[in-house]
């Protein structure tokens, strides 16, 4: 048992570190470059950075050479990501494309389409989004209502998608729609990739409870999609979507700060009952709980990395990550505000410790418990796929979609 790189990995890490050192600024204790810019400027910077990475051979290194990768082991991508995290570089615009859309194109698109779409996706020249969720289809995404029907060589799409990250700056999207309502819900779905600039697509940002707008509603009115852009067979949309969602769970990263470190720093600076809050045993107990959760996840990742590094398939232990980190973020944020007592309600960054990070994440964190699989759905997945418990009794599985009660 050790935490050292193999000589080969250490050499690669040194190479990556040197390249990053020559091409980017180390991360400092201030908002990162992409946070200080508006979306348009941020996107332009991110595209430039992704292209630079790709030119140097560090983008999607584990992807096949034919798709613009280097065909290298996954561990090299992980090492690159670990090192890049220490630098202030604009990222995040491509995570859906690289994590979900690229892999699904690689699996289901034709050779010509792969050659046309994957390299620009990988280089950040074209941005992709994912169009699955709908107002009436969240956890139950297979219950989606967006319709598509065949018209000559095209399909015509009508309906509404929601929670689409980056729809407004995306060039392409992956979409699942219902082609036949007389079939049971999982069997009547078909999967496409579509041009986000197509006529009939209308994109509206959603204002979240934290005031930000990271997501959109996307409306489809008689949007035409060539049949050549269908991925998988007609009626195979659910299987294709499931493949994509599996990739999403790998693509969803860590929760952002604050974590135990930030609470500890805050507690050391706050007064409670006339002494440092960090001397208070109830404060210490809470920090200890969060430390244990954080380290539990960190070391769980180390177990996953070990498996990857030995060329093995990681075990199911990684499935706990988001369930733990999202709730922790919410609890840490709330507790941080509590430590500031009556002043903890203030959100003006100029008045607040850590520029009101705790207050911001208090409002942001509820979303993390829902995005990419709710706490409840993830627990179902752990129970069924990891622990082998029996599946839900599904009253809507074998009946025509059109006969399923909707409550409206």
């Amino acid at each position, binding site marked *: *048992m*050790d*935490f*050292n*790189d193999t000589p080969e*990995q250490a050499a690669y890490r040194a190479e990556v570190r040197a390249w990053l050192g020559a091409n980017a600024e180390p991360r400092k204790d201030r908002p990162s470059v992409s946070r200080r810019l508006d979306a348009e400027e941020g996107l332009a910077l991110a595209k430039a950075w992704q292209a630079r990475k790709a030119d140097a051979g560090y983008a999607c290194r584990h992807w096949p050479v034919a798709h613009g990768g280097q065909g290298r082991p996954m561990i090299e991508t992980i090492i690159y990501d670990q090192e890049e995290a220490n630098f202030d570089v604009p990222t995040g615009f491509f995570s859906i494309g690289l994590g979900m859309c690229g892999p699904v194109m690689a699996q289901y698109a034709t050779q010509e389409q792969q050659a046309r779409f994957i390299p620009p996706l990988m280089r950040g020249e074209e941005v992709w989004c994912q169009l699955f969720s709908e107002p009436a289809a969240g956890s139950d995404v297979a219950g989606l209502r967006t319709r598509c029907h065949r018209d000559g060589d095209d399909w015509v799409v009508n309906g509404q998608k929601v929670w689409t990250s980056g729809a407004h700056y995306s060039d392409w999207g992956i979409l699942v729609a219902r082609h036949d309502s007389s079939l049971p819900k999982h069997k009547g779905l078909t999967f496409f990739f579509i041009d986000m600039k197509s006529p009939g697509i209308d994109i509206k940002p959603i204002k979240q409870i934290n005031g930000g707008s990271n997501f959109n509603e996307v409306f489809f009115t008689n949007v035409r999609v060539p049949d050549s852009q269908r991925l998988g067979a007609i009626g195979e949309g659910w299987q294709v979507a499931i493949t994509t969602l599996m990739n999403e769970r790998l693509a969803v990263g860590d929760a952002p700060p604050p974590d135990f470190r930030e609470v*500890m720093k805050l507690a050391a600076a706050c007064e409670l009952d006339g002494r440092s809050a*960090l001397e208070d*045993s109830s404060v*210490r*107990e809470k*920090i*200890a*709980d969060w*430390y*244990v*959760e954080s*380290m*539990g*996840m*960190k*070391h*769980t990742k*180390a*177990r996953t*990395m*070990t*498996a990857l*590094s*030995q060329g093995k398939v990681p075990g199911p*232990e990684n499935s*706990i990550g988001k*369930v*733990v980190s999202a709730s922790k973020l919410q609890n840490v944020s709330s507790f941080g505000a509590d430590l500031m007592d009556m002043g903890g309600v203030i959100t003006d960054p100029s008045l607040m410790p850590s520029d009101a990070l705790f207050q911001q994440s208090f409002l942001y964190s509820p979303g993390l418990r829902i995005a990419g699989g709710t706490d*409840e759905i*993830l*627990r*179902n997945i*752990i*129970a*069924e796929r*990891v*622990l*082998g*418990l*029996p*599946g*839900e*009794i599904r009253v809507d599985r074998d009946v025509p979609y059109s006969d399923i009660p909707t409550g409206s």
Partner: protein
Amino acid sequence: MNFDFSDAQKALKQQTRGFLRAACDTTVPRRVLEDPDEPFARDLWQQICANESPGIAIPEEYGGIGFGYLELCVVAEELGRAIAPVPFSSSVYLATEAVLLAGSENQKQELLPRLAGGEQVGTFALSEGPGQATEANLQTTLKDGRLSGTKVPVPDGDIADFCIVVARDGGGTSLALVDLDGDGVARESVDTLDPSRSHARITFDSAEAELLGESGQGWTLKDRVFDRAAVLFSMEQLGGADACLQMAIGYAKGRYAFGRPIGSFQAIKHKLADMYIKNELARANCYYGAWALSTDAPELQVAAAAARVAATQAFHFASKENIQTHGGIGFTWESDCHLYYRRSKLLALSIGSERVWKDRLISGLERQEAA
């Protein structure tokens, strides 16, 4: 990065699991639990000693087999899974570690071979009754080589051959090594939450004792022994927590209510998923603790405390929710659920409560921060 046990360590784990499955199914802890005249499973302890397990981490020069702590950790996890009713933790995690850490060369030469072979059982006494023992409130006193005072509960204190006692010594605290069969030692069994592991109240009345380690260093030595023991106790707790999860999964799949397996209800699924989550967090922290113990890393204090806290939480949660998953049958004496529930609380308090370990964790972090 190689954050995993080696193939040989995994083989040892499988071998230990197989041995304990045959030699220590739940009828064994139940037998000890129910029979007041059987303080521990002698037959099982003899087999464990014949396997040389108590000497796994003891160097060969002291009669051990000189493997390392990672090997001891995998054995500990399996003993925890089997809720084995033997004095392994007292003799190996506590007494052996104390002698290795603080003993003079003579004491090591004399005691370690006996501990390694299981000819002698050692134990460690800190608590003097309900309430947290602190350096300031210790009543047991060492003076001119004589020990006086009362320790309770002392794990395996009724059957151990010798005990390492934390005692007031002039202005400070020392560790005193006492022969429990000597004059001036009176011991009686005390009832505890988990009678499958016996405990005693020991009264010392000018009992002959010798120093273990330097005079006045007792409290620091105790902390260091407990840090090391904490990793090993955590591995036992982890094994116990996993056993509870497996037991609950088995029951949830087989028990039908409302026309379907209760494991198909989300209320049960989510409960078991939460058990799994806590167990995995504990496992990761325990493995890190195992690494820190095996390399004597500077991170040991924090790593051991994190393992201890995570494993205590995991076993507590798994053992209580295992009963809940079983429903009424889980509350009966005949069900095995309570064997784990009892053991989880016993282990949770063995070397200090969760609260104490959380405080030690934060103290360690503060020290790291200051460095």
